[in-house]
């Protein structure tokens, strides 16, 4: 019983922490001109300019909404899956850039943070945490009556 409570508490803490990190990442981007985030995205060389601008304007608001949604804790399977998908996309792009030896900013929490093994470790941990929260949300979903 105690161990089940501990697991439950850990999952809630993980979910709230992930949500807070998403809200912080959004706030850091929204307080700056959107072009700074656009420059970070552009440096990855994966999107044309029009898409770079659109992504730079939309992603911070998406991060804010997903962060608040995670903290609120309802429809956790959907919010968890969306957060995991977004983090996997970011992580994949960062790994690609690192493997190609691109000396560029991560763009995760505003300008001035170059991609390194440290940022990869941090974002990899976030991916693992998001996948764990999502998996547990699916495993613990309420059983419908037969």
């Amino acid at each position, binding site marked *: 019983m105690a161990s089940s409570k501990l697991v439950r508490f850990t999952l809630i803490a993980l979910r709230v922490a992930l949500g807070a990190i998403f809200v912080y990442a959004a706030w850091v981007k929204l307080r700056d*001109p959107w*072009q*700074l985030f656009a*420059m970070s995205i552009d440096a990855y060389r994966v999107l044309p*300019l029009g898409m770079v601008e659109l992504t730079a304007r939309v992603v911070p608001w998406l991060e804010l909404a997903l962060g608040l949604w995670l903290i609120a804790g309802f429809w956790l399977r959907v919010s968890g899956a969306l957060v995991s998908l977004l983090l996997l996309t970011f992580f994949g792009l960062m790994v690609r850039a690192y493997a190609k030896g691109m000396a*560029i*900013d991560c763009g995760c929490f505003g300008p*001035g943070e170059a991609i390194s093994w440290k940022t990869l470790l941090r974002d990899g941990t976030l991916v693992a945490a998001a996948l764990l929260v999502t998996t547990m949300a699916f495993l613990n979903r309420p059983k419908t009556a037969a």
Partner: protein
Amino acid sequence: MKLCALLLAALISCLGQPMPADKDKAFGNPSASRRLDVFSDFECPMCRSFHMEILPQLERDYGPGGKIYIVFHEFPLNIPAHKYNREAAYYATAAARIGRYDAVADKLFLNQAAWDGAHGNPSGKVWETVASALTPAEQKKVQALAKDPSVIAAVESDVALGNRFGINSTPTVLLTYGGRRPFALPNAMNYPLLRSLLDGIK
């Protein structure tokens, strides 16, 4: 000398004073609301692109009316392929002392492949490239100044300043505006985005 430059950079950081600017290596209006500090290496191909493609557009769009202040800093990278970048930085800084920085920097970037270490140039014809931008009288002055301890110290001071900002690649462009501390732009090579940013800030 290196220690002095590091101490100076640390002092600037502690006091929150504005970034130092060598007037002989600057463009535009010192009291403009937007300031760019460009850290570059004369042997870096991306620095060449910035100098030849981005800079002329910045000067064209923000020069008239004094809407920008651009300060150039030397940041010769410590990588084996860049054998002559420090020598080039000393000559360019020496040329700045006689008001010929732009001409020498233009020549060094324009003819980068003729003297840099990346193209297998055995001798690194840095001086020949620098000299081609100067008159014989200027050449004598620049050759003497390039060995001057104050010129060497100025380059090392730029490097120390860049290190304080965690710069590890070139070109790195620091932006200062609206009372904010200078910060590195994630990528200054996309002019439409850079222009959109500069137009949007006060």
